[in-house]
């Protein structure tokens, strides 16, 4: 790692101020950032830890039953505290990485990084979540802007993620067993006003909504409704773990499994 200064503010305001320094970088749980620093792929002058800010911790149930999850809440805490409130989200959080990674990694860190194979972007987009930062609210539809790219401005922090609770939901992850990321993951959520299908791990543009599947499932919520749909492999990720065509095929398979799990 290149050398850097370390700061650990205890309020959002102090964190935002510290991130105003040139080449400062926010540190969530560090489960991606620290390996990145070790490879010298990043060289911040200052790391600003978000791990000691009480207002960014924990899971709250709002008056309308929706969930507000602090940006610095670990995967393990989300898994434990949402189990009886939003089982699909709890299941997703409880299968990220491994137990030790889940004790450090955070929801805000995962969303801000927007790894194309990460699980949380699928949950946020599939649930129609709202990402709340230190100065605005952004819908998940506007937040994810391509691989490792989000609507976040320089120095902007995810303070809370707001999840509406669907009638039924399921996350189906086809595990890449070495990395423990999703080779392909599909988060499907059924709301009174329609179905949302978000796909991670598959596209070179990062997480995306499979709108054709949503339309078909809005007409008829059965696995067979997806029978004639095909994803174009052109923009899929192709690597030694799976070709573009394989991933395109898996999107259909995992979406069908998600529908089956919701019936």
């Amino acid at each position, binding site marked *: 790692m290149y050398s850097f200064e370390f700061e650990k503010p205890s309020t959002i305001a102090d964190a935002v101020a510290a991130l105003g320094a040139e080449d400062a970088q926010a540190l969530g749980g560090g*489960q991606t950032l620290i390996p990145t620093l070790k490879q010298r792929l990043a060289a911040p002058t200052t790391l600003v*830890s978000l791990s000691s800010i009480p207002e960014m911790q924990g899971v709250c149930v709002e008056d309308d039953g929706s969930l507000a999850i602090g940006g610095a809440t670990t995967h393990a805490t989300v898994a434990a505290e949402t189990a009886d409130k939003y089982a699909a989200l709890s299941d997703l959080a409880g299968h990220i990485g*491994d137990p*030790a*990674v889940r004790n*450090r990694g955070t929801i805000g860190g995962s969303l801000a990084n927007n790894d194309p194979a990460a699980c949380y972007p699928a949950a946020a987009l599939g649930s129609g979540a709202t990402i709340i930062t230190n100065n605005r609210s952004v819908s998940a539809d506007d937040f994810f802007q391509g691989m490792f790219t989000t609507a976040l401005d320089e120095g902007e922090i995810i303070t809370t993620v707001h999840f509406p609770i669907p009638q039924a939901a399921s996350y189906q992850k086809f595990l890449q067993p070495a990395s423990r990321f999703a080779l392909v993951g599909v988060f499907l959520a059924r709301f009174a006003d329609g179905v949302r299908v978000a796909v991670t791990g598959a596209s070179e543009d990062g997480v995306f909504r499979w709108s054709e599947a949503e339309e078909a499932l809005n007409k008829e919520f059965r696995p067979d409704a997806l029978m004639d749909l095909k994803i174009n492999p052109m923009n899929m990720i192709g690597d030694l773990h799976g070709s573009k065509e394989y991933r395109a095929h898996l999107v259909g398979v995992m979406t069908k499994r998600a529908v089956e799990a919701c019936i």
Partner: protein
Amino acid sequence: MTQVSMTVNGKSVSGDVEGRTLLSSFLREHLSLTGTHVGCDTAQCGACVVHVNGEAVKSCNMLALEANGADVGTIEGQANADGSLNVIQQAFQDHHGLQCGFCTPGMVMSAAALLKENPRPTESEIRKYLEGNLCRCTGYHNIVKAIMAASGQDVSSIAAE
């Protein structure tokens, strides 16, 4: 350099570290607690697992300054007060849960974290919990058997040696 202070295995310790000093480096190089092993250094293998405020974490993937004020437990703090092996360590010996021993500190620390939150895990729960701990020689069966035994359960039904 910044001063960092924490409790390690019940003792207060402090030292001057850089921002980039990893918790694993602080334990091994500043405190000479070399029982915490660094295997892959990329948070895959779990040889560096320690407890921070009671939770298993990969110490090669956490900055020492992030543990400022924390209660840290390492493999050196696992033995009983008289120096004899604790229940988990003894079970690893009894059931041949180690061969070269490199992964063992991390395995024991993960096993201790598991048994704290789930005192009688099933075989499947143990295998799932150890997803972040790699062993390249035992083939895992005897590690799983040792953890089952440490939790006071019958191990005769566990898969092949």
